[in-house]
């Protein structure tokens, strides 16, 4: 938004303040993350190990990619995509189906991603042409899509000898190979929204749809791109998911929906749109993915994880809202 306006008007202070605000969020998240690691190490010195690193990075792959998709929706003013895990599972199941048909790997990946894209297109048609609020659309398609997946697929078995399973279980530069797509997509998203013209358009629409429209940005096209985009990100997560999950269950999405939203909110994305940093998102995904492993080292069962994540989310949204109120004044 600032880039667009600065071509005609000089508003240097806006950009500077936005950057410093993201920097503060990133630093706070980093400090909290490091604090979590430090108390875990004090508790059990063997926390810093290859096994921990591998557990945390495996956690990060799926949540990270889904969070980029969700962040994309939030930053462009699409509120939330509650059906993103359905896109993920559509892709995972399609990969299994096409693999069993004997298709070669690049082809089946592209076609499965297209299936997720078609699902996203369906969402965007409901949003743009029927003008139903995205939250209701994705709630309904998530609900109906999840039910349909349960009826159609009982479970999907990934062939452990396939190249997809190879990709999901191998290591590259000391980290899981499946972690690298997430890292690359994060960097890509950061530069896309910060420097590219199209990326700034999404930000502008998220910040103020009416004035963006007045400046000649097509709202319809942006919305379609947003929801197809988030489904494609869901689809990419689905490829990674198929890589390291030998047996895919149709209800596997339930586990991911909330941590992903928590990561986006924690990273300082405004649910009203137009504000958010993908670098902060990376840190918040890392922090949230460390919690399950840290809990194990504290001798707490994994059931504590959801309890803690839920309350972190409440605290995060409260702090976020309070900060905005303080900045704007009542």
């Amino acid at each position, binding site marked *: 938004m600032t880039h667009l306006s600065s071509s005609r008007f000089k508003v240097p202070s806006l950009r500077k303040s936005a950057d410093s605000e993201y920097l503060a969020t990133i630093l706070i998240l980093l400090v909290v993350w490091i604090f979590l690691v430090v108390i875990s190490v004090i508790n059990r010195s063997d926390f810093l190990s290859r096994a921990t690193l591998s557990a945390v990075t495996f956690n990060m792959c799926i949540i990270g990619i889904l969070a980029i998709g969700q962040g994309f929706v939030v930053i462009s003013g699409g509120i939330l995509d509650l059906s993103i895990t359905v896109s993920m599972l559509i892709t995972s199941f399609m990969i299994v189906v096409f693999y069993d048909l004997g298709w070669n790997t690049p082809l089946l990946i592209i076609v499965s991603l297209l299936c997720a894209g078609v699902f996203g297109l369906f969402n965007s048609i409901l949003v743009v042409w029927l003008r139903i609020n995205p939250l209701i659309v994705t*709630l*309904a398609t998530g609900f109906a899509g999840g*039910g349909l997946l349960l009826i159609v697929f009982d479970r999907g078995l990934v062939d452990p000898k396939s190249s997809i399973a190879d990709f999901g279980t191998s290591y590259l530069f000391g980290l899981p190979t499946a972690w690298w797509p997430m890292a690359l997509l994060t960097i890509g998203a950061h530069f896309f929204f910060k420097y590219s013209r199209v990326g700034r358009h999404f930000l502008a629409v998220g910040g103020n749809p009416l004035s963006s429209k007045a400046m000649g940005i097509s709202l319809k096209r942006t919305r379609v791109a947003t929801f197809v985009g988030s489904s494609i990100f869901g689809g990419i997560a689905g490829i990674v998911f198929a890589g390291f999950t030998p047996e895919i269950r149709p209800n596997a999405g339930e586990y991911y929906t909330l941590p992903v939203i928590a990561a986006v909110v924690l990273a300082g994305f405004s649910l009203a749109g137009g504000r958010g940093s993908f670098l902060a998102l990376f840190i918040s995904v890392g922090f949230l993915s460390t919690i399950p492993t840290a809990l194990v080292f504290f001798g707490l069962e994994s059931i504590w994880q959801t309890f803690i994540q839920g309350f972190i*989310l409440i605290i995060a949204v*409260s702090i976020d809202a309070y900060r905005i109120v303080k900045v704007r004044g009542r």
Partner: protein
Amino acid sequence: MSTNLTKLASHDHKMSSVEKMKKSLSGPGGTIVLGLSIIIGTSALWVGKMTFTSFNIYLILGYLAIPLIIGIFASFSLLSGVVDLSIGAMVALSATIFALLCVNGINEWVSAVITIIICMGFGAINGTAIVVFGANPIAATLGMLVGLRGLARILSRTAPSTSTSQDAISLFITGLNDFTESQISFIPVLFIIALVLVFVTQGIISLTRGGRHIRAVGGDITAARRAGLATERIKFLSLLASSFGASIGGILYVGKLGSAPVTLGTGMEFTIYAALMIGGYSILRGGVGNPMGGFLGLLIIAVFANLVDNKGLDIRAADIFVGVLLLVIVYLDIRRGGDAFE
């Protein structure tokens, strides 16, 4: 039923009878009655006479009663413009706490009171986050949903192993079970209570000053604040009401099921809000909807679930139905001038 709804819908306006007729057909009431007729008609054609046997009606109404009680209390928060997604998890937590206290030998009545107080405490946390700090209601109560599910699971593990099996505390409370299963002729008593609650709430919403205040806060909070209403207190109290309803629901489920499974109420928030939205409420803006509509919306879903059950279809088909129905109803609302997106 249609004329009844028309009266309710046109309560605030003076209209000629022709206008009333037109409005009843194109308004939310018309849509609901049409939907209800279609679903009952489908059931009658597909399942046959069995739809109207007294036992089947008993099944439908029994399935409906507890969600209706939870939904009516939750409708207060929708009306005041905040959505509480944590009700399903709150039901599980309430059932778990209640069962846990009873298993540990505490009197049932005392346990129930303690359970309700604890659940309303979590409702107060919702209220603090949303009203005091101004957090987004959907994000905050989604966090509460997950947090409470986790808490229910943690608490369920602390029960003595003799009374737990497969993530559920099992206990049979004779008095409570008799109460939840009792019926007058073929109508469950719980359903009658729920229906009375619907009418009382309808009266409160449309006739009393407090009801008008809640609608005013949901409809336009700035105007309500300028008119001197205690907007924050009303929102806070409505969130407490929804947690109260969910805690009552949880206790009743323990009586009905004879156990407190930790998965109790999974997805119930979606079913209830879908039903309320079918009935004219909105999760995005307050001030609209009435309890009678919510009741009929829930009835549509209950009849469909019964149809699926009788035909031996996959129960998850109901999820697809609820999703599609939700989109259709919201789209019809937009066509009538409801809040469209952009």
